[in-house]
């Protein structure tokens, strides 16, 4: 058997790849899955700080590739979630320090030990992206409800098609339901229409996300956070559970219920 290898990518930077990787990985490990996160963003490592593991790094992925340590030495175990591990990216090197073949090699060694290998891809479509995608069984494409982010997601989808990869699944991150309602933001339907891709989650913009990354505690642990709940739901869907998309209506007050009544 071996692990399912899922790469989280987006094309555009800043849409929430690392946040998504961290939260899905934590949520999966809380569902008793053995998970390893692999930071493929060499030179701009961040998965360590988002998961609160930055002080535990001794070796990184480039050390493994260049033989300064073995794979087990580079694996950082998360104390709070004993089935969650991280292989950090190197911070002082660049994307050319490893190749797609190196990634295939590392992933092949990790596969028997885990249920999920979640790879955090760098932004862009160059070497770093190719490294991250090379070993992927599945790809999750993160986008925001913005023209530039959706356009870049489309480019990624095209590149995956060209490489005969599975089409991937979509996460729409930082959606603001109020703005969608006012017609001032692309809706989830608009985006899936345009990209013709299955959606695996909609994560609403949420004020708990930044405090969570400030303290290195992924937001999915916050029971009050809708974004956190959305990531839990995504983890469940990855496990094949049928979890309907969240109703993102924020205040189902009297008038809204009245409108619903009128509209059936």
């Amino acid at each position, binding site marked *: 058997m071996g692990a399912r290898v899922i790469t989280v990518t987006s094309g555009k930077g800043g849409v929430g790849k690392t946040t998504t990787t961290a939260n899905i990985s934590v949520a999966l490990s809380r569902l008793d899955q053995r998970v390893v996160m692999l930071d493929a963003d060499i030179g701009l490592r961040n998965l360590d700080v988002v998961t609160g593991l930055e002080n535990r790094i001794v070796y990184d992925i480039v050390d493994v590739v260049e033989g300064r340590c073995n794979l087990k030495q580079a694996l950082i175990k998360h104390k709070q979630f004993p089935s969650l591990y991280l292989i950090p990216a190197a911070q002082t090197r660049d994307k050319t320090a490893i190749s797609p073949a190196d990634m295939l090699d590392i992933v092949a060694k990790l596969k028997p030990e885990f249920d999920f290998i979640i790879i955090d891809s760098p932004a862009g479509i160059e070497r770093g992206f190719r490294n991250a995608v090379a070993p992927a069984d599945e790809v999750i494409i993160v986008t925001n409800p913005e*023209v530039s982010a959706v*356009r870049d997601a489309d*480019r990624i989808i095209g590149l995956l098609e060209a490489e005969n990869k599975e089409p991937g699944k979509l996460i729409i991150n930082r959606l603001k339901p109020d703005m969608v309602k006012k017609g001032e933001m692309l809706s989830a339907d*608009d985006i899936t229409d345009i990209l013709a891709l299955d959606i695996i989650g909609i994560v609403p913009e949420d004020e708990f996300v930044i405090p969570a990354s400030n303290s290195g505690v992924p937001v999915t642990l916050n029971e009050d956070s809708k974004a956190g709940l959305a990531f839990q739901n995504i983890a469940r869907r990855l496990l094949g559970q049928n979890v309907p998309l969240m109703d993102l209506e924020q205040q189902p007050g009297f008038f809204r219920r009245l*409108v619903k009544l009128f*509209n059936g």
Partner: protein
Amino acid sequence: MTNFFDRMFGKNNKPGTGATAKSRLEFVLVHDRINLPPERMAEMKAEILQVIAKYVSYDHDMVDISLEQRDRSSALVADIPFQKAKDVLPSDADYDADLEAWEQAKTKQTQNTFADDGDTPKEMVEPSFIEDDALNAETDEPPTEDDNDPV
């Protein structure tokens, strides 16, 4: 107040920038996906129409050539209504030319009947209207020409 009612009944009179975003995205992705920028696309359309105009006349105002999305693939869809032949009215010059040609044909026909010298066709090919038309068109000359030529 109107705003309140709009919200009550879920009406949205003017589309927001979300709709603008969607249509802009659709436009830009059509061209991204086939790697053909809008200007080159316009050139291609013009060239296609030039080729079509070589063979048939079409209705310029009704031409619709556009890229259509089918899931993630694109197709060029052209709707180019041809003009029906009978819709084309001849210009005055065309009309004059036609008339001239018709007259020449008519005189040839009379030549032939003379040359044939057959008995039966003569009466059939020379129905009365030919003479009438000939007289209407040019009052004096045609009969004299008819008489002169065969000789």
